[in-house]
């Protein structure tokens, strides 16, 4: 079992593209770390550098206490699960799983034993003699996991392993991966662009954008206390609503021509971090907005509603800008209705407009 330490790692491709910028990160032993971010944010490149499939331009990579910058992938004691499974098409499931062990000259009896154990964990015992072609997507994914498990690696690396599965299977496999992580007690590093996967699976999440780490924290913190505008907008579906605002001399929040009293905590934070009359971006999650009376809320017009079964997404307009809130599914709002929206003052997020950094956390 091992820690992974990524120390000021940079990746610059020969064409000059700076894919990973000064990433500095400690991944603890037995942790389930999820890298999440939009396409091209450098998460896969970082993972591939941990695996040794990509050269490191500068910085140091440690697995355990050893610098592995120049160690070949096979000697890093890692296993990787790829998005397209990468099963050897000409080998049976058994041979796919045994391949790495055979190369490392593991005794036959031990290979057999490890494969049987892994097959049992993953429930693929009846498939061992089949070729990858004869398996369904979910089964292939299990075999790919099995191939990783039998190697008894110190670190599991997974590059969007669930994105080729259909929605139902993905949810099922998600749960199984969490279970597997508990059973194996090994470090997992998981790359995804799907924030639901990140939120549900990770013991910690590393949000990346443009090759830069935006925030590393547990899922709850990432959701409730996003460190900057990017994290706030990337995590959460539907997305957080943003308004432009200013804090006036009395430390009240002014949005458009309306003034709001800030809570004490927020006032303290603003006093500490923001200069007077700094332009702010105010964020509020759709579930922290509710419908109220004319005297407590801001007038808005319903643009569209989306029934999701358990709740209702309501898109509304204030001053020609569209925002979204979550309402009870039983709500009978329809297009064109006038409503009065009330923001939960405890759940406001304040960001510096220039830097995008949070003023609260």
């Amino acid at each position, binding site marked *: 079992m091992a820690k992974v330490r990524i120390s000021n790692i940079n990746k610059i491709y020969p064409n000059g593209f700076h894919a990973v910028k000064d990433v500095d990160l400690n991944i603890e032993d037995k942790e389930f770390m999820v890298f999440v971010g939009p396409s091209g944010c450098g998460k896969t490149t970082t993972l591939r550098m941990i695996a040794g*499939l990509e050269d490191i331009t500068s910085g140091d990579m440690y697995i355990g206490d050893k610098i592995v910058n120049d160690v070949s992938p*096979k000697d890093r004691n890692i296993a990787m699960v790829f998005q397209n499974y990468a099963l050897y098409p*000409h080998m049976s499931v058994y041979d796919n799983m045994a391949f790495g062990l055979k190369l490392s000259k593991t005794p036959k009896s031990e290979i057999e034993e490890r494969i049987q154990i892994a097959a049992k964990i993953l429930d693929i015992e009846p498939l061992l003699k089949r070729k990858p072609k004869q398996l369904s997507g979910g089964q292939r994914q299990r075999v790919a996991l099995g191939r990783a498990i039998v190697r008894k690696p110190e670190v599991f690396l997974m590059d969007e392993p669930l994105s080729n599965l259909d929605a139902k299977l993905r949810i099922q496999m998600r749960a199984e991966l969490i279970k597997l992580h508990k059973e194996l007690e090994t470090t997992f590093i998981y790359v995804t662009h799907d924030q639901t996967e990140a939120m549900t699976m990770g013991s910690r999440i590393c949000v990346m954008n443009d090759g830069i780490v935006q925030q590393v924290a547990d899922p709850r913190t990432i959701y409730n206390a996003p460190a900057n505008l990017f994290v706030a907008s990337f995590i959460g579906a539907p997305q957080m609503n943003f308004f432009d605002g200013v804090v006036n001399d009395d430390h009240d929040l002014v949005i458009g021509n309306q003034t709001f009293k800030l809570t004490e905590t927020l006032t303290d934070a603003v006093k500490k971090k923001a200069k007077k009359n700094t332009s702010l971006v105010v964020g509020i999650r759709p579930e922290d907005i509710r419908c109220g009376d004319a005297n407590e809320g801001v007038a808005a017009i319903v643009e569209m509603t989306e029934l999701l079964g358990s709740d209702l997404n309501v898109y509304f307009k204030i001053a020609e800008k569209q925002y979204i809130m979550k309402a009870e599914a039983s709500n009978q709002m329809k297009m064109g209705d006038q409503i009065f929206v009330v923001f939960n003052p405890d759940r406001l997020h304040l960001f510096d407009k220039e830097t995008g950094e949070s003023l609260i956390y």
Partner: protein
Amino acid sequence: MRNKKKITRILLTVITVTLFLVTLFPFFIVLINSAKSSLEIITDPIALPRQWSQLFSNIEEIWTSPSIRYASSVYTSSIITILSLIAISVFSAMAAWVLVRRKTKMSTFIFLLFISGLIIPFQVVMFPLVALFRTINQTVGLQMLRTYHGMIFAYVGFGAPLAVFMFHGFIKSIPLELEEAALIDGCSKTQIFFLIVMPILKPIFVTISILNAIWIWNDFLLPSLILGVGQDIQTIPLAIAAFAGSFVKKWDLIMTAVLMAAAPIIVGFILGQKHIIKGMVSGSIK
């Protein structure tokens, strides 16, 4: 409308059958005439043979006659064909693999060079080739003309462009992750090629082997330039040409020898035709 479709279909069938018969006719002539005596052939070349057993006595004569040296030419043809096929397939696959996986300007240039080998007709380079072989002999002292290795070397050169082209197309469709997975599993570069890439290329190997086998086994011009007619090392087409050129044309033996020469290739083609089509398609589309 329906009538028009019907007529088109009948017309197509007639054309297909005609083409089939035209293509098959020379083979049919060879087949019936190899079971005749010389006299019979001259009297009526398109009549069916009186006695099919004549075929076996013809075969026996070709096989045992010391002047024809048929057995030795079968041996030579086999050696040259098999070794050339192995060399063409393995080297072309290796070259194509590197050309696909190394995305540099140099590799694009080299690939285009291979493609240009497909465009330049053989007749343009055949005399320079012989001259080159002679120069190699004079400068390095390595005998290339009238040797097995010279012949095989030439075949690899002429066979590689198509093979590299087909492998190149197919390898592009193999996901890189497969090789990366093998790398993590502990494979060296060489092991990745032989344990992972080569087995996946099997259909292309079969296609290339069959296409090249037909060509090399039947080829007359290149061996006649490099090995020479009537020399020590003789492939089957050369041997047949040798006794066709003697004072009396033994048509019965020529026909039988041609039939015997074609037989293994025809059998091979029938057994492997499924792979040819599969390999052609996967090579060109992907």
